[in-house]
Structures are given as C-alpha cells and as structure tokens.
C-alpha cells in the first residue's frame, strides 16, 4: 500500500559536512525544490546528533543526516529499512586520535582514551590499533560526551582522546597536543550520509528528488570561488560557532562530493563494500547488531551494483546511486 | 429551642476506650458547661456532636432525629484555635457563611445580593464589637477579637446547637469578662442550645445552666486501655443567676443543685 505524503521532515545536526542543510533551508533553496515537486519539507536542526537519529528511528522524521556506521547500527538494526540517499562526503582527517605530550600512536597503549563510545571515534580507534597490531584490550576506553571533550582535554586526567572536528581543531590548538592517527589514513571509511526511510522514498520518489536537487544546488554554490560561495561558507562556519577560516580548515580535512557524479562513483566503487564489511564486523564485536545475533550477517546491506552483504531476506540498509545519478543528469 | 439526647455513647480509638456509657438528656435552650481533666474525651464528645467523629456505639438525637453523618449548618462551632479563616478579612469571614448558602456554584455573592448579605454580616459583627475592624485579617486581631469573630461567624448561620471547645482559654481576664457578657446575651437572644468545654471552673459555673464533669472512674495504669471516661458529676445551676424567659423549663440535672456555685466557685488550685 503506497502512502502518498506531501509533508516531510528532515533532521540534521551540526557537523562540517551537514552544515549545507541549514544554509539551504535558511536561503530558501529547500523550499524552492520542495515547491517544484509540490511538497513541503521541514528542516529541523538538532544539537544532539544521536537524538536526531533516535527520532528518525522512532519514526518521527523521514530523513536524517548520519554516518554509515550509525545508520547501520541504529535504524537498520532497529528494523527501519533505510536508504542512503546522498553520499555527501567522507572524513579525510576530520576524525583523529590525539595524544598529550606523546607523538607516536604506539604510545597510546595502556592509556585511558576519552572518546564517545560506540561512535565513529571508537571505530577509528579500533582501526588505528589494528594498524599497529593491537586491539581495544590494550587501552581503556572512557566514554566522554562530545560537548565536554575540549574541557576534558584541558584537565590533567586526560592524556588521549579520539574525536572529530571542530573539536580536533580546538584541541590541536593547545600546546601539548599531537595528532597520531586520523581518518585520512583510512580514507572513505567514515562516510557522512543523508538517509531516508526506504518505504517513504519508495512511495514518494519526489521527496528524494527534491532533497538531492536542493543539496547539489547548494553544493554548487558552496564549491564556487565566487563571493557568493565565500559568503555561504562563512555563514555555515558562523552557524557552527566558528568563522570562515575555521570552517575552511575543517573542509580541508573533509572529502566533499560537490558534484553528484562524484557521489555516484563512490557509491558504485568496490571499496564501499569493503568498508561496510569492516564496519559491520566492528559493530558485531561490540554487540550492536542486536543481542543474540549469531553473526555479522543478520542485517543485509544492499549496494547499487545489486550485491548484498549479509542476509538477503533482511536487507535494512540500501545504498543507492539512482537519485544522485538523476541529479547528475539534470546538472549536465 | 433544641433538645439533644445522648444515648449510651461509646468511643474507642484503636481498641482504646476513651468514652463509655455517656447518656445525657439536654433540655432546649440549655447552656451545658463540660469540665474534666485533660485527655478525658471532652473534645471527642464535642466532635461527635458535630458529626466530625462517629461514635463506636450509641447514638445522638437532636430534637428526636438521628444526627446526619457529617457536619451541617445547624450545628455551629467555635474552637480554641484555627477557628476563623486566616485568608479572609473579618467581614468576609462572616459573609462566607451566607455566601455558601446563597451561591452554590461560586460560593460568592455579587451586586445587590452581596450588599444585603454584607449588611447582615456587618450587623452581626457590630453586635460582637468588631464593627470597626471589618477590613482587617485575623492575624491582625488580638486573641479576644479573633474569638469574637469566630462567634459571629458561627452565629450568622443561626445554628440550633452551638459547640464551644475551650473558646476563651487564651484570653486575659478583662477581655474574657467582656466575652462572657456577650455570650450570655447572644445565648438568650437566639435561644440556642450551647455546649461549652472549659478548664476554668469559675467560668463553667458562671455561664452554664448545667455543669457536667467527665472523668475516668478507673484510672490505674493497667485499666487505662480498657476503661474510658464517663459523666461523673451533673450539676444543675438553679435558680439561674440571670433572668430566663417565662416559657423555659428548668434544665434537668440529676444530682444535687448548687445554690451559690455560680456566685462563689471554689477557686481552682486553692486547696494546698
């Protein structure tokens, strides 16, 4: 039974790769595209990233901005069939492992590491440790809220953190901070998405079209070297309580897919396959694929090339290139 | 002009007997003074007359009819403390009784109806000597003035029975004398039946037409649980020390009449 709707809600939270949503909403771009398809899209900003995903998972929102890992672990595991509509960027240095007074990654062994547990930071730490042949058992993880990370760094108790921008930039500005590992060393593994409820998207493809249309129009402005582009970037910086320079520094460590074609290419690539396999193994090891899950295969992940990772009868996360493709065609 | 009949009344609290075998016939327009040691159940007795407490056994009839199950407007009361509403002015404290009757929904009168009720209340207050203090709150009144207010508040409902629980205990002798005068005047005018608890024997003999003493006949520690207090003395004050109306019958007392008990009470605590 198809459910036609005309009103939709998108939840987004403050992060370098998602700031365009706020700007697009403020500048009427979202409304323009929604009007074009005769629908209404409510763009709601969350302070708390996790709460935005929870709200989406509970059904209060039709779309949300999230990382690949959290999309799999929360809505998909929670039975909400979800489609990654837009692959916006991947973290290319935005997430980092930082040590105080020490400069080698191996110095982290035996330390307490402050990070947001079960987040992409946790994943990054696991990958970093893997890279030197160690595992999570060799450190002590202390769950620390992202809002307090900078303040925590400033206390003598804390000697190692894993976190993301803009917090990385803030911490690196203090005298004793040394970046010992960052996401540029695992390129393409921490992906920032705009995801949509699959059923809603299936019943209302125009919602997907409006979102991609608005997104890539914004991308085009943001990427341009014009005064308008600079103004947009400055506004996005301000909205995340930093300035143009700060925001551009964050962008530098983010691989943005400004053109839809780039997104399509990334989604179609085989590396996404490998990344998601690594991610689901990490989640399984931490018991996040559902309690009593017999293997990492319980939840199926479908890719644009038709391949499926895990249970084919229980596909809950789908990567699609269709809408980005449509936008790429329209843009030509 | 209301007769009260108390028939073999018992009251227990959690199996502890407080009052037992209390029987009493009260003639209309009596002024009953209740005395007795602390804790013997005088207040409990009044509360039962008010229906604020249910007897364990026995019954109370007012003009031959069973008491209703809860307090009603035909039995007024003045307590020693907390007898007036602290959040209402003197005038409002008296007015509210009229408003309850006339305005079931809001409990408040407006316009002409209010002016009329106000006049009646102000008249009653003037009668108890509070005519000049209508706008004050109880906390701004002295103890004596508060008790006069409580009396006015009770009397505006023209109760058939008025119950007073140590109403004048906290007052100094001058004010107390004034209130005694007032009380007797109102009692005579409204012809109601009054029950008054007091610790002051001289007050009891001065005001009462009949003095009733409660006490525990068995009072050894091991008996306290099992046996309660009852009426141990019942003295009619006759002839009355103030004029009574022609149509009044002498209030019934069961023991020896005291000639001059009212005029020359034994001074409390004088015996050394």
């Amino acid at each position, binding site marked *: 039974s198809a459910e036609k709707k005309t009103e939709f809600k998108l939840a987004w939270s*403050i992060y370098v790769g998602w700031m365009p949503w706020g700007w697009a909403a403020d500048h009427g771009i979202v409304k323009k595209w929604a009007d074009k398809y005769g629908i209404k899209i409510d763009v*709601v*900003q*969350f*302070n*708390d990233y996790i*709460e935005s995903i*929870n*709200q989406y998972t*509970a059904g*209060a929102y039709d779309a949300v901005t999230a990382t690949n890992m959290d999309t799999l672990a929360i809505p998909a595991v929670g039975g909400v069939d979800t489609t990654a509509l837009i692959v916006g960027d991947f973290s290319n240095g935005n997430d980092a492992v930082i040590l105080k007074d020490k400069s080698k990654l191996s110095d982290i062994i035996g330390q307490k590491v402050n990070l947001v547990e079960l987040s992409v930071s946790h994943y990054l730490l696991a990958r970093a440790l893997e890279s030197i042949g160690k595992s999570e058992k060799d450190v002590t993880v202390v769950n620390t809220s*992202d*809002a307090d990370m*900078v*303040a925590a760094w*400033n206390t003598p108790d804390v000697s190692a953190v894993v976190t993301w921008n*803009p*917090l990385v930039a*803030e911490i690196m*500005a*203090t*005298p004793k901070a040394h970046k010992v590992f960052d996401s540029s060393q695992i390129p393409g593994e921490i992906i920032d998405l705009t995801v949509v409820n699959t059923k809603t998207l299936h019943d209302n493809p125009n919602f997907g079209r409006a979102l991609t249309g608005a997104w890539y129009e914004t991308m085009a402005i943001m990427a341009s070297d014009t005064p308008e582009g600079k103004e947009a970037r400055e*506004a996005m910086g*301000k*909205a995340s*309580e*930093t300035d143009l320079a700060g925001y551009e520094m964050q962008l530098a460590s983010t691989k943005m897919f400004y053109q839809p074609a780039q997104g399509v290419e990334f989604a179609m690539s085989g590396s996404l396959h490998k990344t998601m396999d690594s991610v689901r193994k990490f989640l399984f090891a931490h018991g996040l694929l559902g309690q009593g899950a017999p293997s990492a295969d319980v939840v199926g992940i479908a890719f644009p090339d038709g391949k499926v990772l895990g249970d084919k009868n229980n596909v809950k996360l789908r990567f699609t290139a269709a809408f980005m493709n449509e936008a790429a065609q329209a843009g030509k | 002009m209301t007769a009260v009949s108390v028939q073999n009344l018992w009251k227990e609290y959690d199996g502890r007997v407080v009052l037992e075998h209390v029987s009493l016939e009260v003639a209309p327009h009596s002024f009953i003074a209740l005395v007795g040691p602390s804790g013997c159940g005088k207040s409990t007795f009044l*509360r039962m007359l*008010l229906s*604020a407490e249910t007897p364990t056994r026995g019954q109370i009839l007012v003009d031959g009819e069973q008491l209703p199950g*809860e*307090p*009603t*407007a035909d*039995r007024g*009361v003045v*307590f020693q*403390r*907390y*007898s007036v*509403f*602290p*959040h209402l002015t003197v005038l409002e404290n008296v007015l*509210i*009784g009229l*408003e*309850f*009757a006339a305005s*079931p*929904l*809001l*409990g*408040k009168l407006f316009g002409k109806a209010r002016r009329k009720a106000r006049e009646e209340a102000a008249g009653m207050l003037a009668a108890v000597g509070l005519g000049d203090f209508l706008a004050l*709150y*109880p*906390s701004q009144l002295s103890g004596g003035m508060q008790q006069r207010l409580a009396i006015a*508040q*009770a009397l505006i*409902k023209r*109760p058939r029975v008025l119950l007073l629980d140590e109403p004048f205990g906290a007052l100094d002798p001058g004010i107390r004398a004034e209130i005694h005068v007032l009380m007797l005047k109102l009692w005579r005018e409204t012809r109601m039946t009054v029950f008054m608890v007091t610790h002051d024997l001289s007050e009891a003999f001065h005001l009462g037409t009949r003095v009733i003493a409660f006490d525990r006949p068995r009072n050894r520690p091991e008996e306290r649980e099992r046996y309660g207090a009852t009426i141990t003395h019942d003295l009619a004050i006759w002839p009355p020390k103030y004029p009574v109306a022609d149509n009044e019958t002498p209030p019934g007392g069961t023991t020896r009449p005291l000639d001059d008990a009212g005029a020359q009470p034994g001074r409390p605590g004088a015996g050394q």
Partner: protein
Amino acid sequence: MHRRLINAYPSRGASLLLSALPFLLILLAYLAGSEARLAVNPNDKLLPAFSSIGAGFSRMAFEADKRTGDVLLWVDTAASLARLLAGLAIATVTAGLLGIAVGLLPYMRSTFSGFIAVVAMIPPLSVLPILFIIFGLGETAKVALIVIGITPMILRDMILRVEELPREIMVKAQTLGASTWQIALRVVVPQMLPRLIDSLRLSLGAAWLFLIAAEAIASQSGLGYRIFLLRRYLAMDVILPYVAWITLLAFLLDYGLRLLQARAFPWFVEGRKQR
C-alpha cells in the same frame, strides 16, 4: 562586654563588609587562576581575563549577529524565558489542581498517592528519549521536560500542605454549610495559592536545570543552547557572562515571586511572621 558568639552581632558597616567578603575572595581566586593560566598560555580559553569576558559579553549583548541580524543574548533570553515560564505555569497549575484534589478527597488520595510516590522517583533525564518521541522536538518537548521535571516536586508539596490544613478549618467550613466544591473553591484554593508560590520558588533551580538540559538536545536558540554550543569550543569568555546572566535572572525570578506573595497574600506573610 564579653559575649557568647551567638550573641555577638556585627555592626552595620562590618556586616556589609562581611557579606561582600566571599564574593571578593572568589573574584581574587579567579583572577589568580586566570593570570597563572594566561602566563603559561596566552590563548588559554578556560579562565579568560576580565577584559575578554567583557568583550564577549558586549559582543553577545549589544552587537547584531552577522548571520541572523539578531542580538543573540536577547534572542536567547527571550526564547529561554518563554520556555521556562510556560513550563513553570503549566507545572504550577497542574500540580496545584491535582495536589488540592488529592489532598482533599479521600478517593483521589487512595488512587494517586502511591502512584505519585513512585513516579516522583523516576529521574526525568533517564527517560529523555521517550519524552522526545512523545512530545516531538519543538517547543512542546522543552516545556514538557520542565513540566515533567518539577511537577512531582510541587505536587507532593501541595498534597502535604493541603493535608496540613488544620482539621478545625475543614470542620468549620462544613458547619457553615459549605459543599465540597465550595470548600475547595473558597477555603482551600485561596489558602494554597501563597503556599504554591513557596513551592514554586523551591523548584526554580530544578526548572532551570531541565531547561538547560532540554535546550542542549534540540533547539536553535536559548541560553542553554548557546552555552552548550559554545562549550564545545570552550568559549568561556561568553559562557561565564551567560552563567552570570542566568544567575541574575533566576535571582530576580525568585525575588519577584517573593514580592508577589507579600503583595497578593498579606495575611499569609503576616501569619507566618507570628509563628
């Protein structure tokens, strides 16, 4: 004359000086800490110099934000106060009415007293996700969190206060012929209003706490939102004046309520003095 300490009263001047003392000490401690940290790292953000705090405050309070054109402090204040007052108003009315009903009517008491005792023990922060799902994320949710956070406190207090009304007052009202409705309307409610203000004042602290917690999760303006956002950057030059501002607002609210009580219920304040 030698006196016991409990009988030794400072003179007016000494008293003024003494009451300023702890504030001065805190100020000095801050200054010392700030200088020490700034000497090590001139860019230290944790304990900024007073000049930075002043600049931060004036930026928030007097300059229009470039992006939105709003002067942020006032926008934040308006948003937060609206939520806080709405929450307080709803909680007060709910707890007042329900508390009076439960305190007054035996049937209500039987039904609700156990339930309220249990519900009051649930820490609202632990059921945040459920609250957000039920109330959405708009203004409703924020107001709801405040309401849910403080209603049980006020409610329990109200029930106690109603039950504390002297038995004599209730009996008296009945001897004046009042019905249950009339007793509630004319005897109990008016006597509870000033006590409700007391209870409200006691719960102000918790209300601010919940406001800040709610604004930290989803919102685009508000004092708690701003503090939360700036906390990531450790922008203490703005956070500290914001905290001072919140403290001032809380203090004024408390003072205003006390004043209201004294004005509107003179009988209550006088009665209390005599006790």
